[in-house]
């Protein structure tokens, strides 16, 4: 156990090293930091543009829909910051970085994440949180201690959930070299899905994304619980609190996928 904890300073050192590396290019880092906000701003702006044409989307007025937007943006942007660069796994294999980290006495995944942490995306995460805060303050929520807890719990579980999706889809490229695009259907696609109320979607598509994959519990159900609205689709109120129950299996799947993927890599060398 002491040995396990003993690795923490090592990871902290890796993170500091990455921070120093990025900041060593001072001006271009600042430019990146500012520029990166644009992507998240735009996602949120899209929703506002849609609300120009209609008063409700999927049966929800703008103020309520923005709570979902906020939960989704905060969770996704933070996960993208923490784990997003794992998309580059294919590149790490090609340049030999994966081999280099396998030779060191630390776990491969934490090393890869910390060594390539995209600090410039921090601005996106901050913006996402800002949107969430603005949305929950203007949506007329009836605050209770439980709800205050939820507005923190839900995004955190969302981060874990999205991070798991990132890792799982990246691990796919151990078997399927050109799988990169498939992953983005679930990472960026998942982000798009959670931005809007689940009532917008229909049929088996909704069933798969919202319930089987669990995306509905990232933003939609927590938002309903915060707003005190009943689910038009029929799930009970406590569904809003089910976020951890969705995040946990996601983490297990991601850990398994990564383990099996690295094992496959070490067995086939490519």
């Amino acid at each position, binding site marked *: 156990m002491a040995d396990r904890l003993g690795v923490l300073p090592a990871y902290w050192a890796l993170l500091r090293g990455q921070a120093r590396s990025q900041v060593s290019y001072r001006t*271009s880092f600042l*430019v*990146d930091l500012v*520029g990166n906000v*644009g*992507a998240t701003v*735009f996602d949120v702006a*899209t929703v506002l*543009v*849609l609300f*120009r*044409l*209609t*008063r*409700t*989307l*999927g049966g929800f007025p703008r103020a309520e829909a923005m709570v979902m937007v906020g939960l989704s943006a905060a969770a996704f942007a933070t996960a993208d910051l923490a784990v997003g660069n794992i998309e580059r796994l294919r590149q790490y294999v090609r340049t030999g970085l994966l081999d280099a980290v396998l030779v060191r006495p630390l776990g491969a995944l934490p090393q890869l994440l910390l060594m390539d942490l995209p600090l410039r995306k921090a601005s996106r995460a901050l913006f996402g949180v800002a949107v969430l805060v603005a949305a929950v303050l203007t949506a007329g929520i009836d605050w209770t201690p439980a709800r205050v807890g939820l507005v923190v719990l839900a995004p955190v579980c969302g981060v874990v959930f999205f991070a798991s999706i990132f890792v799982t889809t990246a691990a796919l490229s151990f078997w*399927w*070299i*050109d*799988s*990169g*695009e*498939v992953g*983005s*259907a*679930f990472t960026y*696609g998942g982000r*798009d*899905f959670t931005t*809007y109320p689940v*009532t*917008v*979607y*229909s*049929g088996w*598509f909704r069933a798969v994304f919202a319930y089987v994959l669990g995306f509905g519990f990232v933003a939609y159900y927590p938002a309903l619980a915060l707003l005190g609205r009943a689910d038009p689709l029929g799930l009970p109120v406590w569904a809003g609190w089910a976020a951890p129950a969705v995040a946990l299996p996601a983490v297990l799947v991601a850990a398994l996928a990564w383990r099996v993927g690295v094992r496959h890599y070490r067995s086939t060398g490519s």
Partner: protein
Amino acid sequence: MFRTFAAITGSGFRRYSTYRQATLAGAFTNTVFGFLRCHVLLAVATGAGGVAAGYTPDQLATFVWVGQGLLAVVLLWGWNDLAERIRTGDVASDLLRPVHPVLNYLAADLGRAGYALLTRFVPPVVAGLLFFDVAIPSRWSTPPIFAISVVLAVVICFGCRYLVNATAYWLHDVRGPMMIWTFGSGVLAGLYFPLHFLPDWVTVPLWLATPFPSILQTPLDVVVERDDWPVQVGLVAVQAVWAGLILLACRAVQGAAERRLVVQGG
């Protein structure tokens, strides 16, 4: 001369046909995003009382699915061949070829687009037909106008990508221009929502003064038959003008770059 052009186009086609897995993966992703966007826009139409910014629900569905199909044909994102070659210095050998570099890349890109038309355009369109009520062109004049519009769109998008890549001749790090292009082109081309969702005082200047709407918005508006054929022809004419302007810009930039290369010795 024409035969050379055709030969390069053919090799562009063949090169991309080897990326079978990536094609499959891309088509899958296009389809998923098609579902996502389609549902959202249909919900907007429902909320707006049936018609959103002049589009009926079936027109919106066609808009989304043909849009996803065209995305890989025009190749809005993900092309940095030229920038890479500039970075490694391989671009010098392009100058030794008997074909003008811009035409060289254009021909190859048309080949690529041709391949994409067969493999990436069809799946999303079929998915749209299967799962949604899509508007099918009712006038016989629409398909030919649409075809011309798509070709022009490919040319314009190629030109824009070429220009963005060509900044590598002057800049050390093309990431900035690439980011701006990725960001701007998606928005302004009408990928996330039809540009008519925006107020007119934004849309009209965008359409006339920038090439972006001519890349996706125009062919899509043509195929959903939002307007009568004279207007469609007018929009395509705007495309043609932009295609010409962009190609001229590429030639000018290429000339400036070559002078710089020759003077600086690579």
